């Protein structure tokens, strides 16, 4: 029943009181969820910053390894080794639940490989190719870990924004409106009570006059 249609009656008052209790409970819970999500966000942000820094270091290392590999084996040698890759590195997607928010959970698949799994012949390549492959595998793992964290932060931020809007709506609109309505109904009911009392006194007086 919309707020406007609630009549200033006892049942109306009960409805408003019930709704207010519910709104206050939701407000309290959402506020707790918001605080929890903020703590999780801070934790994730710290972790993401660390991961990003690590990612940058791994990127620089991978570039250096690629440079050394290209110097020693030539672009031809490196590309031939790259051509040998038989299992393309990928990831599986899942989700984990944090305060009701679905955060992405990415699992690397065939990213870290053994020397045998890489597909190139050991006798046709040198250890510099292994180093470059290792460095790029580490980089891909770091990219996946970073993407998972940053994706989680984006989702969490969206949800924090939505929850904050709900908390604000409850705090500054729904609860004040219900408080006002309750007060109005109580005033109106008091007024009606007073009118009834006056009316009864008046009728009593008229009856007493007629009796004389």
């Amino acid at each position, binding site marked *: 029943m919309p707020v406007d249609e609630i009549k200033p009656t006892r049942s109306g008052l009960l409805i408003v009181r019930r709704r207010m209790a519910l709104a206050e409970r939701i407000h309290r819970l959402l506020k707790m969820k918001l605080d929890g999500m903020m703590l999780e966000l801070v934790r994730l942000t710290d972790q993401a910053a660390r991961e990003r820094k690590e990612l940058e270091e791994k990127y620089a290392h991978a570039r*250096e390894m690629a*440079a050394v590999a*290209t110097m*020693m084996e*030539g672009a*031809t040698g490196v590309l031939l080794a790259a*051509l040998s890759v038989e299992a393309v590195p990928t990831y599986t997607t899942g989700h984990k639940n944090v305060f009701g928010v679905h955060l992405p959970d990415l699992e690397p698949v065939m990213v870290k490989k053994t020397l045998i799994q890489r*597909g190139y*012949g050991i*006798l046709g390549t040198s250890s510099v190719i292994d180093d470059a492959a290792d460095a790029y595998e580490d980089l891909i793992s770091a990219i996946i870990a970073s993407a998972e964290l940053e994706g989680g932060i984006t989702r969490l931020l969206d949800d924090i924004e939505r929850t904050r809007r709900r908390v604000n709506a409850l705090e500054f609109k729904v609860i004040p409106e219900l408080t006002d309505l309750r007060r109005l109904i109580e005033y109106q009911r008091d007024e009606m009570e007073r009118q009834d009392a006056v009316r009864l006194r008046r009728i009593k007086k008229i009856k007493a006059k007629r009796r004389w």
Partner: protein
Amino acid sequence: MTLPGLIAPSCVYACTRFRVRRTKLLSREDYRRIMQMSIPGVVAHLGRQEDYRDIINLAASFSGARLVEEAVNRSLARSFRHAMMIARGDMHTLAGEYLTRWDITNVMAILRGTVFDVPRQQVRDLLVPAGELDTTLLDHLLGLTTCGEALEALQDWRLYPVLEEYYRICGERGVFARIENELYMNYYAGLLGLVASGCSGCRELIAYLRFEIDITNMKNLLRLRCGEEACDITTIDQTMIPGGRIPIDLFRRLYSTGTEEEFTSTFLQTDIAPVLARAVRELRQDPGFSSEDAAELVWQRWHQHLRPVHEIEMAITRTRLRELEALSRRHPFSVLTMIAYLERKRYEVANLRAIARGKAFGLPPGRIWQYIVL
């Protein structure tokens, strides 16, 4: 016909040609000058050299370090084909056998490109026709659509028997690595077999090749050890090249050793330790570095599951190449002269490529210099 004990005139002629060609290769001073240049400077400098003159024509299609790499690869292919033309008789056969390593690379690139559906032009750019398989055959192979067709077209190749075994399973996961490893094993077996048949300088060449096999096996053992999952004995058997001075059993023993004493004592039994010690002495300018220190260094890498240090690998290559040159000077009219030239040319190309790539990546000259083989 040449009388026993006499050197054939064709051999003298070929060796003289190789020695002349050797003198035309870049010197230490040339490298020092090139190191001071920018990439366009290197291109202009190479354009003035006889061997790299067509770099100017390639400039329309490539640029930067890629241009240098393309030009040096073409120069390598041209020089090696020219070397095949100069060499006659047994020397020609040996040159063909020796250059098969380039054919292996080309064939593997084509097979992989065919199976993984890589654009033909991309594969063509990776080929260096420095072996016996000429450009016409390689182009024909590139035009084929299935692995089976490519294998059939290679029936006349000297390593075809290896490919034949994999005809049915060509393209399956892990097969290419196995084929590649077997091709290299057969390459070394063929080369050792040919050299063992006897020729001037062959005894020394066998020793050089056997040491190359030992070094390759040791490096690969460290690589296998470094892998995340420990490899089993089967993998060691599949990746160790037979024919070296060090028996495969010793590598197996090394792989299973757990203590430093056991490892270093086994390692000191090999010929690698003194060469490694000499290479590190030169690299670090440390005259006190002994074979025991070398064994200790390898143990540290082994124990920590680390791969060989690239700079030390390069230093060993330098030492080996210097020994080969000394041998070729001692036997001037032998196959050693040809092999020394081919090896020098190979490393000249590698040096120029390293300089161009190093400069393109912005590495300091000191760092690039460590990868130069002189």
